[in-house]
């Protein structure tokens, strides 16, 4: 997803000056532009979100008591997450995690996991 395509959508939240008080540290201007819609189906954003998943769902795709989610078809991934969010599927942990995710975030996660292959 190209940078230029989203310039118009930027809502620049802040400019923060890093480490002013320590001259030996580096001074960096950080523009943080954070948000949602532009991340749709973005595997990089999905990888960040997946940090929460890999605590339980092993990144190598092995199932040792918690189902593997590596390499799932994207539409199936999104459908399952939606059903947790809507509390149609039981499991407190997954309802809690999915309850947080909007549809773009689900799509990003689905794109990321869809791009992975289980290690054999």
């Amino acid at each position: 997803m190209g940078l230029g395509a989203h310039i118009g959508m930027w809502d620049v939240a802040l400019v923060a000056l890093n480490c002013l008080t320590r001259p030996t540290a580096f001074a960096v201007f950080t523009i943080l532009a954070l948000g949602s819609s532009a991340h749709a189906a973005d595997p990089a954003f999905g990888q960040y979100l997946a940090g929460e998943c890999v605590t339980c769902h092993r990144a190598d795709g092995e199932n040792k008591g918690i189902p593997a989610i590596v390499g799932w078809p994207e539409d199936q991934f999104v459908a399952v997450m939606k059903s947790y969010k809507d509390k149609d599927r039981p499991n407190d942990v997954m309802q809690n995690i999915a309850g947080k995710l909007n549809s773009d975030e689900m799509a990003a996660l689905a794109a990321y996991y869809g791009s992975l292959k289980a290690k054999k």
Partner: protein
Amino acid sequence: MSRLNRRHFISGSATALGSLTFGAPAVLGQGKAKVVVVGGGAGGATAAKYIAKDSAGAIEVTLVEPAKQFITCFHSNLVLGGYKPMEAITHSYDKLASAHGIKLNHQAASAIDRDKKQIKLADGSTLDYDRLVLSPGIDLKYDSVPGWGEAHEEAMPHAWKAGKQTQLLKARLDAVPDGGVIVMIAPPNPYRCPPGPYERVSMMAHVLKAAGKTKCKIIVLDPKDTFSKQGLFQEGWEKHYPGMVEWINAKIYDGIKSVDPKTNTVVTGFETYKDAALVNVIPAQMAGRIARDAGLANESGYCPIDPASMKSAKDANIYIVGDACIPGDMPKSAFSANSQAKVAAMMVRGELAKAQTFPARYANTCWSLIQTNDTVKVGGRYEPKDGKIFAVETFVSKTGETAELRKQTQDENVGWYAGITADMFS
């Protein structure tokens, strides 16, 4: 505006890029940026991995941890209960180091020189850092139970740090005769693993019951009025171990007056327990010494952090994750430490390697085994809000759940252990 706020606030809605960083670290001219991670547990191992893995060689990561093999405190209760051998909770750092190019330094870190940005090691050598991630875990307050101290941890084990103490407590538990009394002195808040003492009580009762020693009694002396998953544990104790567990809070026993490790005696304001078969003292706790000595803790004994980044509230070059930090609404757990470490790793990479950063979000779940295939859980998701890590939504198992659901929850518990240890060590 404070130093931290001026540097580090995130607000409003926004989009595409995460962060754009202009300018380069002053240190770049001197070679690779250096990160030192102190402590190789759920917080430190995870932070080291994610900084090294996601910066693809741009950041030099050194993990300082004296132990060659790490024994997880999480699931050590399952060792006590006979469900797992010690080997199953013992992990090597080799794969973590080789897979991600992390330098291992198997020494204790003895001090931090915050002005020089330098760690002093046990052998007197030093390590420079541009950013330091501290995950030292807890220290026990050996002066918090009158009559008990470090010299008595063999006579009255704590087993709140896994390893020899776990094995000692298990050996002592296995030797309790039928009709013997076990006294557990539970810790005050805040401490590592809130449901841990009560899962331990369950495991003790399980071992006794399995050995036919149902005349034994476990007395829990608790300074707290309530405890984590209380209704669930008490329901489970009544169901599986009727008459074997007696939980008493401080309002009733009127405080621990003294303990005598020589005679295994515990004196409360209400009663004296003489010749106990086993006394398990879980004392009050605080952040690991290295963090306190460096002035990173406050009067609580734990370390305040910026909830949006896990950065120390007292030093812009230091991140503090895991049990040593003040995590707001999050419990002190391995899951929390792992979650916090991923936020810290992202922010470190943002600072040192111009990596994209996203708003912090955190998660936790704690599973507790009450009896074979009867497991409960509590958890939630968290975000920075009002100056702390704030619980956005939480959940907890319900009393009266079906055996099938409890079995599924135990499968999840086992799966989580396999997941988080793979996440930490490979």
